[in-house]
């Protein structure tokens, strides 16, 4: 089994607060890996470290067989890593089509900067495939939340990533939208893209993911299959809840 993404002893502090503490885990190539844990566990920080938004204090990050620890933010997308965000970070004054076109900007050659026809056609096709073909001309700030969430995923797909990082893609979506998103991600995964998904929606995780990593207080407490995570005492205690605790909650 080859490894698409690997974190080895990664740590990150903000001031005196250590938010990621010696975290190591691997994401198998072609897998659909969930990164879960309670709020404040450091999941989004891990995404920011992988995508290069924050530099790491110590450790090493490798992606697709290359050490990317020192790689610049802009080069990581070219290396095959694209991401979405926990809070929507679309360009509010751009249209849907323009937002999606931005996803493949890293591929444009200098002489292509004065043209947009090729990127526009590709973005339209990508939107069509994701079931968003009716929105290309609309300013994204005017679109419903669920649509914006999916556009963000499509923008990341437009980068033609080999590793796709999705930060709470199902947050705020209704059941129908969540199911549409799951199907879209399943299709993406079937095309060979490795997924790393931060998500609190456990049914979504169970249906989509085949590998789970759990963080708590910046430390990894579990790595394994979705079936095994349900049996792990530390995960039940820290995040999923023990049967006793769930009983007490429902009493």
């Amino acid at each position, binding site marked *: 089994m080859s490894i698409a993404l690997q974190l080895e002893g990664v740590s990150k502090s903000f001031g005196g607060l250590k938010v990621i503490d010696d975290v190591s885990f691997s994401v198998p190539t072609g897998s659909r890996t969930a990164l879960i844990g309670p709020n404040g566990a450091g999941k989004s920080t891990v995404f920011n470290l992988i*995508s*290069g*938004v924050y530099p790491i204090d110590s450790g090493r990050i490798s992606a697709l067989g290359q050490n990317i620890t020192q790689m610049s*933010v*802009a080069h990581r*997308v*070219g290396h095959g890593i*694209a*991401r979405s*965000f926990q809070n929507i*970070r679309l*360009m*509010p*004054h*751009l*249209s849907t089509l*323009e937002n999606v*076109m*931005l*996803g493949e*900007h*890293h*591929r*444009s050659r200098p002489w*292509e*900067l*004065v*043209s*947009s026809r090729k*990127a526009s056609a590709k973005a339209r096709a990508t939107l069509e495939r994701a079931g968003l073909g009716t929105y290309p*001309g*609309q*300013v994204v*700030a*005017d679109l419903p939340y669920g649509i914006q969430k999916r556009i963000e995923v499509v*923008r990341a797909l437009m*980068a033609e990533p080999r590793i796709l990082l999705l930060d709470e893609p199902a947050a705020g979506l209704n059941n129908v939208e969540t199911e549409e998103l799951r199907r879209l991600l399943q299709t993406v995964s079937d095309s060979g893209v490795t997924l790393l998904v931060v998500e609190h929606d456990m049914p979504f995780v169970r249906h989509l993911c085949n590998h789970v990593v759990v963080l708590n207080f910046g430390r990894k407490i579990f790595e394994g299959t979705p079936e095994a995570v349900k049996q792990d005492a530390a995960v039940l205690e820290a995040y999923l809840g023990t049967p006793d605790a769930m009983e007490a909650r429902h009493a």
Partner: protein
Amino acid sequence: MSGYLAGLLAMLSINIIVAYSVFLPGSAGLLNLGAAGFVLVGAYTAGALSSLYDMPLAPAIALGSAMSALVAFLIAFPILRTRGIYMVLATFAFAEVVGGVLLNIPSLGGAAGLSVMAYAGLPVVVPCAIGTVAFVAWLMRTRFGLSVRAIHDDESVAHLFGVHLRMTQVMALTLGGAVGGLGGALLVHQFNFIDVQSTGVLFSIYVLLYVLMGGTQTVWGPLFGAIFFTLVPEGLRKLSELDPSLKFLEGGRYIVFGVAVVLIMMLRPQGVITRTMIEGWGGSARKKEAGA
């Protein structure tokens, strides 16, 4: 056409051109309070070439624009090291330095200003304005334009998707400088005269207001701003001449105009022309077309 109307149209055309010199970097989120600096560089370069070296009008104007672009390119690097209000102050300081330098070059007229013989009339100025609007409208539809607008909306996400921030911002400032220089080159040959005082800090503030009030979200914002700021004060003055009961507008038109500006800023802080507004018009037109 009367001389008054021709003059007004020429001034409007030049104001439109200069507005786009601020819009270009503005659309990348760079506030430029130094429009006067680029206008002066373009004006003095073109004016000196045509009056001191007898260069024909067209190449003189082109070289005025090119010189302003070169200056913009050179100052872009130190200016881009600043952020927010400090960038505004840096561009303002640039214009002051340009003014100061020009005042101390006797061969360019110093404080007395530079007079030129060659004249750029409406057949030159108006097509230049139309061409500038068309050029910027085209540019904003290219991938370069897309990256500029992406930086304006969210610099860090744009960078994450491979937009080269520094290169794009330098290009936006350089192109803005070229357009500002074009405006200056036309200005000096329209009035056959330029001096540092006539394009001072108030000029830069007005041009920035054209853009901010018109809106930076679309290419039509600066056009609206320039038209509003050029024609409304003149319209109010004309009204005071036509109707004796509006005589107070003769002296008080700038009060009325100022109140109107404040109201627009309060009601449309994002600028009068927004992307949503343009898309709305487009959508209505498409619906009408579909219904017909």
